[in-house]
């Protein structure tokens, strides 16, 4: 009888990562900038997207993949804004994975798309662990969620390129410290771009869409 330890060092999500890499290469080749939007349920992803689409549609060709555990409600809301939308129902899954995104990608005319939003399932934990082949992850949090969110869910904030604070019109009714959010967020990720927005009043949306347009332009130049 002989016993032996064998070094494996294989990533558990290697199949997902492989598909994500293929998606990333395709998007890059077509010049599509893809944003993976991650947040808790109810933080305002769909509403922010509706406003973002209305502001950016005149100058860029947009598309949205809307992930949800059940229903096509978010996709239906976005379709009304006159852009290509594909719903991904995960049927209980707590996050989108690269396989679902890769399959949904076939429904888009990528050569006629500049900016693709991937609205992840509302969940600030699991989506952080799954590469979808996006250009960047953007994390959203609403002011009602509490200013310590970045340190409660560090994985999402660590991997994100930007943080969008939403529903800032509600701040007068809350005990909420913008300074603390920023301090906590930067303790996890000092390079986070930061946008303070209200889809209700429109505050901050110009900065957010300006940043997105800049990212798209940088990709086209590369």
């Amino acid at each position, binding site marked *: *009888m*002989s*016993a*032996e*330890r*064998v*070094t*494996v*060092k*294989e*990533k*558990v*999500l290697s*199949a997902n990562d492989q598909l994500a890499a293929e998606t990333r290469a395709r998007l890059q080749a077509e010049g599509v900038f893809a944003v993976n939007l991650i947040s808790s349920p109810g933080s305002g992803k769909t509403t922010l997207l509706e406003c973002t689409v209305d502001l950016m549609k005149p100058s860029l060709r947009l598309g949205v993949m809307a992930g949800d555990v059940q229903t096509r409600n978010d996709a239906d809301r976005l379709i009304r804004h006159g852009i290509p939308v594909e719903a991904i129902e995960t049927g209980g*899954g*707590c*996050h989108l994975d690269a396989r679902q995104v890769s399959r949904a990608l076939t429904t888009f005319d990528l050569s006629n798309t500049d900016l693709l939003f991937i609205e992840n399932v509302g*969940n600030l*934990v*699991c989506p*952080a*662990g799954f590469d979808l082949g996006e250009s960047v992850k953007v994390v959203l949090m609403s002011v009602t969620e509490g200013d*310590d969110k970045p*340190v*409660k869910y*560090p*994985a*999402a904030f*660590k*991997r994100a390129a930007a943080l969008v604070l939403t529903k800032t019109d509600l701040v007068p009714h809350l005990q909420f410290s913008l300074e603390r959010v920023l*301090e*906590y967020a*930067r*303790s*996890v*990720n*000092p*390079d986070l771009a930061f946008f303070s927005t209200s889809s209700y009043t429109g505050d901050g949306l110009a900065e957010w869409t300006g940043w997105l347009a800049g990212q798209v332009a940088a990709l086209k130049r590369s």
Partner: protein
Amino acid sequence: MHELSLALQIREICERELEKQPESRLTALGVEVGAFSAVEVETLQFCLQIVMSERFDGVRCEVIRQPGTAACSSCGLEFEVTQAPFECPSCGALARGVSGGDSLQVSYIEVESER
């Protein structure tokens, strides 16, 4: 929340490794889980024990926690982090960013053979 499906994928990786040495019996495995891998270690351990025992009797499952690294925003000290808030053990200031701790991999397997 998806630890059970991760455990199943870990089992598949082990099975593929074992195909390379069909005479051997799996006795143990080690999985490295980073502090920022968005995986709950105790839940993964629980799920792993269940799905691995279905195929491999008596297998020992080790989950190895991989910490992240942080740098203090005030005194510059580098320190290991596993849990927020990421405060410097020396001066108490918050970190200016964390790195590493992203691992989620099958680190090793242990096998026994009759030879």
